[in-house]
């Protein structure tokens, strides 16, 4: 059975970039008030616990918050470029 495609899902750097953009977009749309606080992942719920090290949940919440803060503006530019490229080249 001589298939030309490998069973490694034919990864390219472009598909990796697409996956990263989609994941960062997904993190960026998590709203602070409407969603994260409701499930106990809000900013105010992570301040407590000044022990020696924070747990995984606190680290995750910090990561979500920092990604949302840092990537908000660059994501606008990257998404616009992506939309234009996809419209032009399919």
């Amino acid at each position, binding site marked *: 059975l001589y298939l*030309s495609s*490998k069973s490694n899902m*034919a*990864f390219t750097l472009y598909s*990796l970039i697409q996956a990263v953009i989609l994941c960062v977009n997904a993190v960026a749309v998590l709203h602070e008030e409407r969603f994260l606080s409701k499930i106990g992942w809000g900013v105010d719920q992570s301040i407590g616990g000044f022990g020696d090290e924070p747990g*995984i949940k606190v680290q995750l919440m910090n990561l979500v918050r920092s990604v949302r803060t840092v990537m908000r503006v660059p994501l606008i530019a990257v998404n616009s470029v992506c939309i234009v490229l996809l419209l032009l080249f399919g």
Partner: protein
Amino acid sequence: MDYTATQSVSRQRKLTYVDQTIDPEMRNTSMDGTDPSQLFDDTSAAPGVQPTGFQGQGVGTMGHPGRTLLSDPMSNLAMAYGSSLASQGKDLVDKNLDRFLPISKLKYYFAVDTVYVGKKLGLLVFPYMHQNWEVSYQQDTPVAPRFDINAPDLYIPAMGFITYILVAGLALGTQNRFTPEILGMQASSALVWLIMEVLVVLLSLYLVTVNTDLTTIDLVAFSGYKYVGMIVGVVAGLLFGRTGYYLTLLWCCISIFVFMIRTLRLKLLSEAAAQGVLVHGARNQLRMYLTMSIAAAQPIFMYWLTYHLVR
């Protein structure tokens, strides 16, 4: 100036009549003869000075239309502008590249010699006899890999990656499945898996808040060590068929598992746990699980990236 003019004229008379192609670089090298890179270094003085020296000779010798290119002031200007742009661009690239890619730190990872590479390759396939896995330091900076076999390097992973692609092409060629595009596909696939693995390890190191001195480049180096085992497995598969492939891959998987555990144990776990003492506590347990999962991911990748090559 006269001396150089006569010297160049005599040299040009030796050139054959065929050499009429307009080649300013060759003209420049024949002109001064000592500095072939003059085109890029001296942009201010050269173009204005030299053509006038040749104008006088242009009447005497005939049939060198390349001369007219340099005597034309517009092309002089263009050439001067172009070469000054090139040197400016080179300076800009040199200055900014050091901001994005830490070039000096990269140089540390390539400071290897043959003895180190040989010993490290032996260690990658047979790590069971090695006793001391600690990286030796010299005043807070790690010693170069040339002097310490436990230090990670980037030479073996880089060479291993390239060799893996070549061996994959060879393996596909023996099955009549080779096209030139497949080489590029293999390369980008393996690179993508490597980047994803390094990103996942970085994320998990961040989440578990391990205070370690492992840099990103160290992680790339550790992830690249598995290519050695993959190459050995595929070559064995080509020589001895599927059983040879499975046996050597099993051996290399176990070796890289032990290698990673012994290397990462010293870097990720706390001091007491690294000595082999069972330290209880959720944090140490988490770190132990992290080490084991990083080490266990290596054999999985080794199998995943090579099984389609050996049929």
